[in-house]
């Protein structure tokens, strides 16, 4: 069976559930007391998609402000970016828009963007309407799905949709089989990340 | 404000000992509103300090006290450590705060390029020692002036300010901050060791005197600057003893010891059976021009609040304090009666004690220089005994050991005071001296041993020996 490597990074505010989504996808587990990610965490997971094996190389980035400047290092090499917000936090949805803007300006040209409205199990505390988010996603041609890492809702579907949308190997220069190397940012010559 | 001239240690180095920077007393309730801060200040040394600076320093103390109440409402700050000084806070009466600012010792070095570097020795002052000094300041003030609150009741703020200025103007000059040590923490009383017979003799003397001089309310008897008998409460005796031994007695150095009779006071010169003289009161009781006035002291201020005349009368090495209610007017006749009654009897008693003391000394054999020195203190009766301090004078108390060793004793003492438990601490200093501290049943013993090559077991044996030999006959009250 053919093996394709798909590089994905997760972006979004701290506490929206990026790591929980990854854990659910990779380990099929959930920890309500998960600690905030430090720097970025790298994980892989191979799934069958149609007649191919898709190996997801996932960068789970930290959402805290002090790691903000590190983000380009991760999305620049990615074929897809999952931007996560928390449906109970209006503010997180606003940051999402900034991420989209940034990806459009500095991200790889053909990057697949997926928007995940996480914590959909907390419908009672909802602050972001599904329709508003959906409309916004459509306007930028992004994948949209509401998820719950806690209740394992739409997690696998999210990644399956990314599998479907990412162009095949030969048309995607970002995913040669050698394993990607993070490109050096010309402006960032100093070792300081921020 | 350095009153002590710098001491040259090396060509390029000057040392300055700790000194008094500020001393002030305030009551926050006296100027509670903005713009009235100056009214809080009851006393400020040095007086020349500019008004705004006074207000600022008092404000800082208030702020610190208030700030620490955030963390413990009942136990506010006792001291503030800064790079240049330490400030000690004491609230002896409700809302009355005394603050003493002591500069850290300084070493001033001159670099090769001629610039000077000042090094503040921040870890040299012991909080326990200077905390005790500021408490002593209050106790001494209270002994001669009564409480702050009582003065306020009698004559308002004006009277209190007047009293404070009069007292502290002189008293602060006698603080000698650089020679304070563990003994100040104890504030103990040295008791004169003597046999039962002599002790009974003294007791019956005191009884006789109190019988004949019915005005006398309290009596205290001392020999060689050491206490033998006292009718006062312990705390009152403790501060009176401090006054007698560090201030009054040293001012009247024993003329009789060098074979001369006392001039003036007692009159009766040339009488071999009467060496008595007054250390307080009129300089000549037979001179009708001189008014009969004795210093007043205040005792039992917590309950009875007694004001007394203090008569100190001395013959040779024996001294008696007679205390008489202040409401009684002192007359020339009374003084003459006292002098003629007490003078001969005290002279006789003094030579008895002296003789007996010398006999005991002979019996115990020639004094060998021991290779240890010690301090003992008993919290129950305030008895203290030291072979470290050579002699107390008005100005200082000389110690025979290096100040750093004295500070180690102070450290051990503060370790002891953390818990009310029997403990023992043995340390070896960088100079290889061993220091042993023992606390047992309210008694503390500190020994400094000069046995550099000894090990822990040998040091322990030495201290055991010392306890067996020294302490059986010294602590007659035990």
């Amino acid at each position, binding site marked *: 069976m053919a093996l394709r490597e798909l590089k994905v990074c997760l972006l979004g505010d701290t506490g929206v559930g990026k790591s929980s989504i990854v854990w659910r996808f990779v380990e099929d587990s959930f920890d309500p007391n998960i600690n905030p990610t430090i720097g970025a965490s790298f994980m892989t997971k191979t799934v069958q998609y149609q007649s191919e094996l898709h190996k997801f190389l996932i960068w789970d980035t930290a959402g805290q402000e002090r790691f903000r400047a590190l983000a380009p290092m991760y999305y620049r090499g990615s074929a897809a970016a999952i931007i996560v917000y928390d449906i109970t936090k209006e503010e997180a949805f606003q940051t999402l828009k900034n991420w989209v803007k940034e990806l459009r300006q500095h991200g790889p040209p053909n990057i697949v963007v997926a928007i995940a409205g996480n914590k959909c199990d907390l419908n009672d505390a909802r602050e972001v309407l599904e329709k508003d988010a959906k409309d916004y996603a459509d306007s930028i041609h992004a994948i949209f799905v509401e998820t719950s890492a806690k209740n394992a809702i739409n997690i696998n579907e999210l990644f399956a949709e990314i599998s479907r949308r990412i162009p095949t190997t030969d048309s995607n220069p970002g995913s040669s089989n050698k394993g990607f190397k993070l490109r050096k940012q010309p402006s960032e010559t100093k070792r300081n990340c921020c | 404000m350095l009153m002590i001239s710098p001491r040259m240690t090396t060509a390029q180095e000057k040392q300055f000992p700790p000194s008094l920077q500020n001393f002030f007393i305030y009551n926050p309730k006296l100027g509670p509103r903005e713009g009235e801060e100056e009214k809080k200040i009851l006393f400020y040394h040095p007086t020349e300090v500019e008004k705004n600076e006074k207000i600022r320093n008092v404000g800082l103390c208030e702020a610190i006290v208030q700030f620490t109440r955030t963390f413990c409402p009942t136990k506010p700050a006792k001291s503030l450590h800064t790079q240049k000084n330490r400030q000690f806070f004491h609230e002896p009466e409700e809302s009355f705060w005394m603050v003493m600012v002591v500069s850290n010792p300084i070493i001033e070095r001159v670099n090769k390029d001629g610039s000077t570097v000042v090094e503040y020795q921040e870890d040299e002052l012991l909080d326990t020692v200077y905390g005790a000094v500021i408490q002593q300041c209050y106790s001494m003030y209270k002994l001669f002036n009564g409480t702050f609150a009582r003065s306020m009741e009698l004559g308002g703020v004006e009277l209190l300010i007047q009293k404070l200025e009069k007292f502290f103007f002189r008293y602060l000059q006698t603080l000698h901050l650089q020679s304070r040590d563990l003994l100040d923490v104890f504030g103990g009383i040295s008791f004169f060791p003597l046999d039962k017979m002599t002790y009974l003799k003294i007791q019956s003397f005191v009884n006789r005197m109190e019988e004949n001089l019915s005005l006398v309310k309290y009596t205290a008897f001392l020999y060689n600057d050491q206490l033998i008998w006292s009718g006062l409460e312990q705390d009152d005796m403790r501060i009176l003893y401090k006054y007698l031994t560090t201030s009054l007695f040293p001012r009247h150095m024993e003329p009789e010891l060098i074979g001369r009779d006392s001039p003036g006071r007692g009159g009766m010169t040339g009488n071999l059976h009467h060496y008595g003289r007054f250390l307080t009161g009129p300089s000549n009781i037979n001179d009708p021009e001189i008014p009969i006035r004795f210093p007043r002291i205040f005792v039992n201020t917590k309950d009875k609040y007694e004001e007394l005349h203090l008569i100190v009368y001395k013959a040779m090495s024996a001294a008696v304090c007679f205390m008489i209610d202040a409401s009684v007017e002192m007359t020339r006749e009374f003084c003459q009666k006292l002098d003629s009654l007490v003078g001969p009897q005290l002279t006789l008693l003094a030579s008895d004690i002296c003789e007996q003391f010398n006999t005991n000394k002979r019996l115990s054999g020639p004094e060998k220089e021991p290779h240890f020195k010690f301090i003992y203190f008993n919290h129950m009766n305030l008895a203290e005994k030291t072979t470290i301090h050579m002699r107390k004078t008005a100005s200082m108390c000389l110690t025979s050991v290096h100040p750093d060793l004295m500070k180690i004793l102070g450290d051990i003492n503060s370790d002891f005071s953390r818990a009310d438990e029997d403990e023992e*601490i043995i340390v070896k200093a960088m100079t290889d001296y061993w220091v042993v501290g023992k606390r047992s049943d309210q008694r503390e013993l500190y020994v400094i041993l000069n046995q550099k090559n000894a090990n822990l077991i040998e040091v322990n044996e030495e201290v055991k020996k010392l306890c067996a030999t020294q302490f059986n006959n010294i602590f007659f009250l035990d």
Partner: protein
Amino acid sequence: MEADVHNKKTPWEINGSLAPAELQRNNRSESPTPGLVEGTEPGARQDSAMFVHTRSYEDLTGGEEEKRRQESDETDSPGQSQMEEISKDFSELSTQLNRVVMDEEIRDGEVEGTVSCRDSALSDKEEDVTSESWRQHRKHVFVFSEAGKPIYSRYGTEEALSTTMGVMVALVSVIEAGKNVIKSIHAEGYKVVFIRRSPLVLVAVARTRQSEQEVAKELLYIYYQIISLLTLTQLNRIFEQKTNYDLRRLLSGSERITDNLLNLMDRDPSFLMCAVRCLPLSASLRDLISGALQQAKDKSLVFSILIAQNQLVTLVRKKDQFLHPVDLHLLFNLISASSSFREGEVWTPICLPKFNSNGFFHTHISYLDQASSLCLMLISTESEHFFTISNCKRKVLERLNKRNTFQTLLDGLQTPSYCVSQVGISDLRHFIYKSRSSGLFTSPEVEHPYVTQEEQERLLELYQHLYSRIHNSSRPLKYIYYVGQRENLLAWVTSGFELYMCFSPMGTKTGAVNAITKLMKWIRKEEERLFILNPLTY
């Protein structure tokens, strides 16, 4: 005359009965046990050390930084004038303080409102800061900017404590306005210790028996912890641009790391000893592991560190590069503070403040085995080298698996420490032995009667107290023996080693003296297992 008595340069004795002795304060002198001079004591490295010489650690609380700051104060830096502004109306502070109390009362009401929406995991922080239980905490720690903006508080929210921190900053600035520096405030049963490391001020309120210096040392650790997240360069730049910046924005999520560091310092003697504890392992096994780390090298790698349960398994370093124990302690803390390294491979910037406070290293952090506590840290200078370094990790694992080393190591982790009974000294309950030249220490499991956390912290406090007495900055000691109701303690410091022992109160002085000899022999015999004698470089 009196001056002479107090003159340090003259012998302390005047009457001659106690012969004069020369002061040798700076000379921690000959080791009484022959052959135990520095560098040859048990645990001393045979060739090179892997840490910066640990002596340099001792200027941690003092010294240079502070002096430099004072110099700049003298020249009336902008910071100074700003401080003066704050303190301008200080003469009225006392009057204001009464208002502060009122403010706090009003605030209480507000706080309750905000508390409810805070993360439930932060329940420690939600405490009522006027309650007795809040006051009674053993050690409070506050961090704020020089402008008085709250940054961190160990107990209670920064919002609820902003007035308290405002008063603290006022105290600091008023005393600085008088060209002086506030150090500490002492009251019965507690002390308040201040340190200022521009642009931050750190304050602790401690009810422990630690000396002012020891508490200040812990505050410095907190300061370094913050630097390790941000670098000093970034910290300075932020506050230069905006003096009233709310640093909590940048530090969000790191409270847990700081909390953990404080908890660790309350229990782990590593911080007190300024030294690192090694996981006991046979020398051959440790050499194999070190070899595996050494082989998996990369140009950009500076340190490869394998740890387990806050103990060092091994450390391989680039030639001529030394790690400071403080930096290693911060790494230990980072690992123990967060479960987020458990899954996958983490790649994160870390500043090692003692190595270089101005730049980040990029660290690859992963557990070698998900179930074990073996954590590998590969510290690189290149932010883009993740995959190269990840490959190094793979090589380490391969090598370890090859000769079944890994399984032996995992077996060794089953007994990560040892019992004091193995030494065979009847009244000995616990000890700490530190080799001064290698910066490593060893210590057995804490056992009966120190079973509860409270008792364990009390034992550490006893050691802290001994440590502060024997290392007193103005009057250090060589030797302490303490006899108490609950235990007897011994401390002995020579140029080569430091030894702290805890005996049952039934123990005698003779027993203690004999125990020293016996313990030293035992440590010599076990030194290969207890210490890292052959540190490697790439």
